[in-house]
C-alpha cells in the first residue's frame, strides 16, 4: 500500500525527494499519511480533490488484496 502511494506521488510531483509516506497500523485498518512539498500539494490533491480521491480508490483495492482497509490523508508539510 505504501509503495503504491509512494509511486503515484513521486511520479506526479515536481520534487520527489520530499515525498514521504507513513503508515499507521491499527488492527485491520491502516492510515496512510502522505506528505509532499508545499508547492506539490495541489498535484496530489487535484481539482476538487480528484487526484487524492482516485488514489484512495486504488489504495482501497491494494488494501483489499491484503485483506485490510486503508485510508489516505494528505497532510501539510512540516
Amino acid at each position: 500500500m505504501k509503495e503504491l502511494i509512494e509511486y503515484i506521488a513521486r511520479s506526479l510531483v515536481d520534487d520527489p525527494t520530499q515525498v514521504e509516506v507513513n503508515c499507521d497500523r491499527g488492527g485491520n485498518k491502516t492510515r496512510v499519511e502522505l506528505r509532499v512539498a508545499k508547492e506539490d500539494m495541489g498535484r496530489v490533491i487535484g481539482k476538487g480533490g480528484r487526484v487524492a480521491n482516485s488514489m484512495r480508490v486504488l489504495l482501497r483495492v491494494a488494501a483489499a488484496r491484503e485483506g485490510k482497509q486503508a485510508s489516505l490523508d494528505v497532510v501539510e508539510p512540516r
Partner: protein
Amino acid sequence: MEYKKITQEFIAPTVEEAIEQGAKTLGIAQDKLDVEVLDQGSKGLFGLGSRQARVRLSIRNGEEKKPELNPKTERATVEKPIAEKPSPIVTDTVEIEKDPVLKLAEDVVWELLQKMHIDAKVEAKYVAPIDERDQRMVQVEILGRDLSILIGRRSETLNSLQYISSLIVAKEYGEWVPLMIDVQGYRERRERQLKVLARRMAEQVVHTGRRQNLEPMPANERRVIHLELRNHEYVMTESVGEEPNRKVTIILKKQK
C-alpha cells in the same frame, strides 16, 4: 526515449497521418524517409473492429545505400486487401522498437497494478477516433483473471486507474496523451450496452412524450449516450445533477 534506430514503426488512423507523425517524431523530412506500409488499416463499424494504419519508416542515409525495402511494399504501389475481416484485437508486431508513448503507458499501468498486487498482462495500442470531432487515443488493455475488482462500482476503480495513469504518463511524457484503460474488453461491452439502452430509452421518449432519466453514470459513459443520440431525429440529451450522481436525461426535441 531513443530514436537512434534507423527503422521505426508508426501507427495512426491513416497511412498519411502515420507518416506525418513518424516524420515529426524522428525529426526528419518526409522525403528523406523510406516508407513501407505494413497495414492500411480499416474503419470498422462505430469505431469497433477498426484497425490503425501501420507504416515502417527508415531513414535514408546519404551514401545512397537503399534500405532493404521490398519494392512491392513501396508507398505508391500498396494494394492491400481491405476487405479482410477486421480482427477485434490486433497484436502489433514488436519486431521493431515499440512506440515510446505506448511503451510508457504500458509501463505505468503495469507498475500501478504490481503495487496494487494485481497480476495481469498489459497491452497498449492506438485506437482510431470515433468521428472527426474525436481525438486519437491510447488504449491500454488489461488482461488477466478475476479482474472485476479493477472495475468497481460504476467503473469507479477503472476510472481512477485511468485518471492516475493519464496524469503520470502526461507528466513523464511532457504532454497530455488521451488514455483509455480497459479490462477484459469491459468498456467495449459496456459501450455496446449503453448504445442499445440509449436507443431504447429514446424510443420510449418518442412514444410517451415524457422525458427519461437514466441512471447516474460516469462522464465517459454519459458521453456514449450523448454521441449515440446526437443525430436523433426526435430527441435530444442533456446531463443533469452533480457528480457523482450526474445523469443523462433524454427529452423530446421541440418540433418546428
